[in-house]
């Protein structure tokens, strides 16, 4: 059954990928990208990667689509057609495809227990997580504690990406950008009664679900990345319906900047606290007298840092695009 669903989803993915390349209408391309992400999320879910599926659904299908649409409103809707044949590009694509197909011959079967990836450190993680960290979700244990350095790097990638977008989109405005206020006339879709009422019903629950995903990450699928993007999606929905000004009134730009910086710093400081208390960097065992409780506290704190940074970064990027839209 899994094989059948997998083949079905992958076939649809291939069809949609071709459609994205073929279409000249960028609006259609954005919508197809959103469908692609949703199918990819379903695919991840079939492969038992619920954590990744949550992120893909929230970021890929939700937030990215809105940001693409904001970007699209700044440019033309149709792709400029290129008549010249690009033989070099075609050659590179064909060669890369052949190399990738050749590489898959060496790939172990899906779910093969003898595969190198299941023989290296994975058994150790599965065996030691209950002993060292004592939480049911091994993914969170690996992400937050065993491979805390990687996650720290990811948080700083998000942080850097956010700064980069702000520099690129804010540059034209110069210092004025910081004090930019959206025009009061822009009230989004709030004159439409039905979306307004429904969104008012839904936004609190979306944010609540985000918080659940944040704090339940030690027991089920979830964690900072997913929670941050779900909360951000809820607030973006608020911004789309009630207007950008209402969203900025709820969460001001200064608070968002503080969230991005503060979350990344919280993560780094938890690492430094381990160093100060006599352990290694990002070693949470020393945070409390009981090493297991210390690990859990450390994971809780760094997940909070991740969530706050991701939420702030997504909202800042969204507002950066939306601010340009009003020019």
């Amino acid at each position, binding site marked *: 059954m899994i094989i059948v669903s997998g083949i079905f989803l992958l076939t649809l993915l291939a069809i949609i990928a071709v459609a994205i390349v073929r279409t000249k209408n960028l609006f259609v391309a954005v919508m197809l990208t959103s469908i692609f992400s949703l199918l990819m999320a379903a695919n991840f879910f079939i492969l038992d990667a619920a954590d990744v599926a949550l992120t893909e659904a929230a970021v890929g299908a939700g937030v990215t689509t809105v940001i693409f649409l904001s970007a699209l409103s700044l440019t033309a809707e149709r792709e400029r057609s290129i008549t010249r044949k690009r033989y070099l590009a075609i050659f590179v694509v064909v060669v890369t495809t052949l190399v990738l197909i050749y590489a898959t011959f060496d790939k172990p079967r899906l779910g093969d227990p003898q595969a190198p990836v299941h023989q290296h450190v994975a058994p150790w993680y599965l065996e030691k997580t209950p002993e060292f960290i004592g939480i049911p979700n091994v993914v969170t244990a690996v992400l937050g504690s065993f491979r805390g350095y990687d996650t720290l790097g990811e948080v700083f990638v998000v942080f850097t990406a956010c700064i980069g977008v702000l520099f690129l989109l804010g540059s034209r405005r110069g210092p004025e950008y910081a004090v930019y206020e959206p025009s009061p006339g822009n009230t989004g879709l709030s004159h439409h009664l*039905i*979306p307004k009422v*429904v969104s008012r019903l*839904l936004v609190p*629950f979306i944010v609540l679900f985000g918080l659940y995903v944040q704090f339940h990450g030690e027991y089920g699928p979830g964690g900072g990345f997913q929670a941050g993007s779900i909360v951000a999606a809820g607030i973006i929905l608020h911004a789309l319906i009630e207007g950008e000004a209402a969203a900025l009134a709820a969460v001001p730009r200064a608070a968002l900047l503080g969230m991005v910086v503060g979350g990344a710093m919280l993560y780094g400081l938890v690492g430094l606290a381990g160093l100060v208390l006599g352990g290694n960097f990002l070693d949470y065992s020393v945070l409390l007298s009981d090493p297991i409780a210390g690990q859990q506290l450390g994971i809780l704190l760094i997940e909070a840092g991740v969530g706050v940074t991701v939420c702030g970064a997504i909202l800042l990027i969204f507002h950066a695009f939306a601010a340009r839209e009003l020019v």
Partner: protein
Amino acid sequence: MAGVIDGLSWILLSVGGMFVFIGGVGTLRLPNFYTRMHAASLTDSMATLLILPGIMLQAGWSLATIKLLAILVFLLLTGPTASYALANAALLSGMKPEESRQTVGDKTSAS
């Protein structure tokens, strides 16, 4: 009792699946945008309303049923809202709902 619940669940699932099918055929075959949207909205209102209770009966009294109920309420709120927003956006961008008789008449040339 178990057999009755099972049968009821299968009826709900089959009828729901039929509505998905009708919605799909309607989206492909109907003549203009608004009628197509009407067919598409069938899948996210009527089909959801049948399929999710069908799965709930299969799940029995468990946490899964509560989650399915939450999904059902969520979809019942968002589906029609999305359809409304889509129709509204189409109307605002200048797409006039046409007389169906004319469009059915030249369907072959339009498609």
